[in-house]
């Protein structure tokens, strides 16, 4: 990766930080309900909140002040990597996120690797015989798994593997096998798409002139596949991974909540319920940065696989 690409990614990271910050800030302000009441409820419990407590919170956090000033001061803290304190627990947001991010990355990486073992191999298999039974089965299951939302896939998996078969834990984080079901839930959705990409890429490569030329040069079918097929098929699959991260990050929020996985998505949902603004902003900010980082990683991987120079 050259300097221009890195520079571009850094610029992108700044832009993402700014826009995500602005977006979450506005959204939190326009959410229905009195901000001070919700924060107070988060701190003391819903039964114990009264207008006195809410007023105390309002004064303490300066919620009456100008929203523009509040935003600017938050953004100024942000670029110094000071994410502030949780309004609810008083914990440093940075520490909380750092802790949770590890769990999320663990889950997302497991899901991604799992999906790469499911999607592309099935896609290649289908691409070798377009129109065959395998191809149609892969198509049907990919439509099913992509169109069913995460929480539904997750619930079905819980019912089958945990409740019926009793093989895997329902939810939580303690057991080494706990990550299997949430990761599988995410992986199925990811594999649904990557199998299609792999299939179409395989068909295109197999129809290409260079694939035929490889054959007529005298290479065997497996030689042609490993020398001229695999690398060319990988390029679109890797490129598409970049776009799938949106799906992954969005999935993490739902799946972590469903499986009570103590990750960043789980805590984002809690933070939104409690109107814990620094937590919301911090989480969204880190997710945005992750997105930029992962896309840079995809760029890098693609460069390893595909020697052609591309213009950003």
């Amino acid at each position: 990766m050259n300097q221009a690409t890195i520079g571009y990614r850094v610029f992108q990271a700044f832009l993402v930080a700014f826009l995500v910050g602005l977006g979450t800030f506005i959204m939190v302000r326009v959410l229905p309900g009195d901000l001070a009441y919700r924060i107070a409820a988060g701190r003391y419990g819903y039964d114990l909140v009264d207008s006195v407590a809410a007023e105390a919170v309002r004064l303490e956090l300066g919620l009456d002040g100008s929203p523009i000033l509040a935003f600017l001061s938050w953004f100024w803290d942000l670029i110094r990597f000071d994410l502030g304190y949780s309004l609810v627990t008083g914990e440093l947001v940075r520490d909380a996120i750092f802790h949770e991010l590890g769990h999320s990355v663990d889950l997302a990486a497991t899901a991604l690797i799992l999906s790469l073992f499911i999607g592309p191999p099935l896609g290649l298999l289908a691409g070798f015989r377009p129109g065959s039974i395998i191809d149609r089965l892969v198509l049907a299951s990919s439509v099913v798994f992509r169109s069913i939302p995460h929480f539904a896939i997750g619930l079905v998996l819980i019912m089958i593997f945990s409740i019926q078969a009793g093989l895997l834990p329902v939810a939580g984080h303690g057991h080494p096998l706990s990550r299997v079901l949430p990761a599988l839930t995410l992986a199925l959705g990811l594999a649904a798409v990557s199998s299609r990409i792999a299939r179409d890429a395989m068909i295109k490569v197999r129809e290409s002139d260079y694939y035929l030329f490889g054959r007529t040069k005298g290479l065997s079918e497996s030689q042609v596949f490993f020398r001229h097929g695999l690398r060319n098929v990988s390029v679109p699959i890797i490129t598409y991974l970049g776009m799938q991260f949106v799906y992954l990050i969005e999935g993490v929020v739902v799946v972590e909540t469903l499986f009570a996985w103590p990750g960043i998505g789980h805590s984002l949902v809690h933070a939104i319920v409690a109107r814990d603004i620094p937590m919301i902003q911090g989480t969204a900010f880190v997710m945005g940065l992750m997105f930029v980082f992962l896309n840079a990683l995809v760029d890098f991987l693609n460069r390893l696989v595909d020697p052609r120079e591309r213009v950003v």
Partner: protein
Amino acid sequence: MKTLLDIKELTVSGEKTIVHPVSLQVRTREPCTILGETGCGKSLLAQAVMGVLPSELRAQGRIFLGERDLLGLIPKQRRAIWGRELAILPQEPWLALDPTMRVLPQVKEGYMVAGAVSGASAGRLAQATLSGLGLTDAAGKLPSELSGGMAQRVAFAAASVGGAGILLADEPTKGLDAQRWQDIVDLLLQKVADGIGLLTITHDIGVARRLGGHVAIMCEGRIVEQGPAARVLQNPVHPYSKRLLAADPASWEKLGGRASNGVSPVIKAHSLGITRGGKQLFKHQNFSIAPGEIVGVTGPSGCGKSTFGDLLLGLLQPDTGTVWRDGSHPPLRYQKLYQDPPAAFPRSITIGQAVEDLIRLHALQPGIRDTLMDELRLQPELLDRLPEQISGGELQRFALLRVLLLDPIFLFADEPTSRLDLITQQEMMNLLVRCARERQCAILLVSHHADLIGKVADRLLFLGEEAISRDAAFSACHQTSPREHPVYGA
């Protein structure tokens, strides 16, 4: 002479027969060339011999390679022949090279196929082969970094290193400029001299002429005539062969070469220079063109021929110098005719609609469309079709019609016939010349085809490094002094 490949009564059929019984022999030291236009079935013939026909087509008859009938072999046995006994030089070298693999391994794997050599010595052999073809520096490059001619030589190396005794060359000169054209034909001749059997498929009469040996002319799935090249190409017997050979630009009557009539120019350019993609294409280029005049622009690929025309039209801005267009004509009368007709028409609306839209947009007389269609010999029923439903020649004539509707005073024709067949090309060029003379329209004609441009243009402009010497040579043989002299490095 030994017969290497004996094709007997070979047919190719899908739902109906596409190639009718063809018999041909490829012998040592006698190149065999099949000459024909697009869609005549000549590429299918090559694919049938190789055994790579599309799955919906079937080959019948006999193809003897030595004692074996190829059509009697099971796919696995045929495949064992590929690269080792029978090799094919693919039609589009750029597409036939793996875009993500560097040149050396793509050539090297051909040696590994033969089985006798290890990886390291295959690498050395491949490097030596590339050096022998003047491609020493290309070994570490990717196909996208190669020029068309280099890609063709790399494909040539990759196809022939497996040691096959028979080489099928499918349109080996497609899209190459004059110098590269000659290089590749020489390479093929070298193979013949080495005792390799050569079967070439081409639409280019020049290739057939230069290869010599045995020539078969193919039309609509049949070989209408075959025999020694000297006889078939000099004294064709079949009416189609006669027509095809007469359409070779080298055999055309001279259409251009008119002396300038002293009319004041419509476009004048002074000291033009431009850099594109970091490369100085030309500088200090002067130019002028008068109504009714045809100026041919030629030069090796990538020398900026199309760029030059776009500069005159104002589609691009020069880095240095000025372009003056006669302001008494509206800008609409400066027009361009594109190389690839299907790309110049919207795909999903009928041609009639496309033409109608133009007439409405510029409030033209509806009657002139019919007059022009008569003139260009276009049938009215074509108007209801989509661009992909008519032939390339018809579509290019519609492109010309679309331009003529605007009554151009200057027309930049950018390789207008390079995608057309010979006979269609001749018709199109005749129309262009007529349009210049009758309508007093100045035409800037870009073509990589030296014969063609020599016959059509009144004057030539050479772009590229050999510009000065070639320009002088041309003026010497035409006894007219070109008014423009490109000056390089001054």
